[in-house]
């Protein structure tokens, strides 16, 4: 990360999200610098996933602005957000269960493919060239994440940790500018967590992808993240480097509780 002039890739300003009378997010603002790993933490129900859903276009906040790549973003549908280069993985795995690993990864290339139905029907000339070219890229990603051996296995039958990795591969296949990871290490054992952390760091360093991740494992967060946002009850509690956040009294209170 360039300390002197960090370029802001995404900024959310004063987001308010309500479902009827329930306030999910209340006046939250933060930014994400290009090339950094930004962690979003907070107790359960703090509005972390809602925040990602707002960025993704699933939820449309009642108030607030989202700035992406230096421009104010109009209200967008998820498929439009995908076109701007934001990829995401889910807390509960959202893979295409009926398809194999390679097919799942190939789905990440959908937006880059554009040959029309007639070429597709013939599967000849441009259509097959396109298919081969994207297949190559996908194989590289599969190599990178070390899932070659399950290339042709239907993902529904894979163990949990591998499914998470396939989901990451699918998101990487989109070659995103901003990668949102919703609890990439939930439910993993120590070894799987180490692998996953290594992949996240490598993605960040090798591809220069900006990453925003939600995670509950504090050790992981403190190791990986360049900066941390803390949410609690839909409000911004703290924002800063892991060190600053760790020593913040409000954060300690939110996690450990305050004596009454």
């Amino acid at each position, binding site marked *: 990360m360039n300390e002197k002039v960090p370029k802001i890739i995404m900024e959310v300003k004063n987001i308010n999200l309500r479902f009827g009378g329930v306030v999910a997010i209340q006046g939250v603002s933060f930014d994400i610098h290009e090339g950094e790993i930004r962690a979003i933490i907070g107790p359960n129900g703090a509005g972390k996933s809602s925040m990602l859903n707002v960025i993704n276009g*699933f939820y449309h906040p009642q108030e607030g602005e989202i700035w992406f790549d230096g421009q104010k973003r109009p209200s967008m549908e998820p498929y439009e957000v995908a076109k701007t280069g934001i990829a995401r993985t889910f807390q509960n795995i959202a893979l295409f269960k009926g398809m194999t690993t390679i097919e799942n990864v190939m789905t990440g290339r959908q937006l880059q493919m554009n040959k029309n139905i007639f070429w597709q029907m*013939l599967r000849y000339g441009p259509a097959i060239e396109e298919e081969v070219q994207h297949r190559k890229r996908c194989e590289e990603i599969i190599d990178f994440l070390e899932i070659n051996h399950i290339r042709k296995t239907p993902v529904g039958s894979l163990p949990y940790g591998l499914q998470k990795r396939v989901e990451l591969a699918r998101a990487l296949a989109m070659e995103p500018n901003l990668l949102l990871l919703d609890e990439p290490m939930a439910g993993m054992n120590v070894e799987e967590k180490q692998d996953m952390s290594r992949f996240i760091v490598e993605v960040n360093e090798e591809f220069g992808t900006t990453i925003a991740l939600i995670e509950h494992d504090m050790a992981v967060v403190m190791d990986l993240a360049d900066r941390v946002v803390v949410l609690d009850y839909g409000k911004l509690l703290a924002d800063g480097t892991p060190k600053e956040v760790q020593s913040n009294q409000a954060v300690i209170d939110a996690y450990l509780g305050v004596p009454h």
Partner: protein
Amino acid sequence: MFYKETGQFKSRYKDELAAFPLFEDKIGIGILCVLTFLVIPMFGLPGLNYEFAMGAIMIPCMIFIIMTLGLNILLGFAGQISLGTGAFSGVGAYAFYKFITIFPDINIIIALVLSGLVSAVVGVIFGLPSLKIKGFYLIVATLAAQFFLTWAFIRVAWLYNYNASGAIEGPNKEMFGIIMIGPQSAGMTRYYFVLVTLIVLTWLASNVIRGRIGRSWMMIRDMDIAAELIGIRPLVAKLSAFAFSSFYIGIAGALMVFFWLGAAEAESFDINHSFLYLFMVIIGGLGSITGSYMGAIFVWVVPVLIKEIGKSAFGFDAFVMENFSTILLGAMIIIILILEPHGLARLWQIAKQKLRLWPFPY
């Protein structure tokens, strides 16, 4: 299978992406082609009357395979349930009838493609509710299409050219100097026409399914939220599936009337037929082209064979056998679905897996 992938290395992705990457599969398909193109037209099916084998088994089977392919694209690959198949096939048949009566000189292939396209448009219109509703509620919406269209086939006299009988009939019509359809056409020409259509349509469907568009359908089927996040517009994916599927079903409907039945009324497109096609897809296996073949063949051929065997071997009369075959088919469907809910295609896969190791179980 008794052969396996081992030792057949591909050095280019293009080779691996081929329809039949394995050498033995290519031989198998070659044998099937020889059988269907040469052996069956010459000798018929073993133990059956030649006319019967062609007219009551081979031709309808191939037409129903196209129908099943169409419905499988919608139901098995895109995950949208439809009970309007019968009606959409009717749209294809009536459109074909209008095309060949309004333009008597039209080429049959062009008329067939055009009637498929008409069916596709109607399919898209009745597929619009799928954007908002899913599952059981979508069944109800497509049921509306089924009832509305069969009503139209009866009430809108323009569709059957104000015939007194209310039926559509194939006039004699030539293509390249050979009579293709109508009472004077030879069973052999119709057989070859349907066979070639089936092969072309199967090839096109397998191509689409393995490409970008096919993947977008499967994405919508498996996890629509994630699909949207990757940039799939549900509108485009769902409606293209409806269009593609109805195109196939429309062509199958036109073939059914003009290359097999010879004449048809609205009853040939009623809800019972929609159910029949749904059975074929489910028995065969959702989301599988081989399954479409197996399901259509199984559901159509088994009752016909039971009837034949009952008549010739035990001397039962036709009505008894009619009911008996229905009962037996129902029982077999239940047994198959209990044994393997994913249909015959999965059973076939399991058999292949087992045969790889055979005769050594480990």
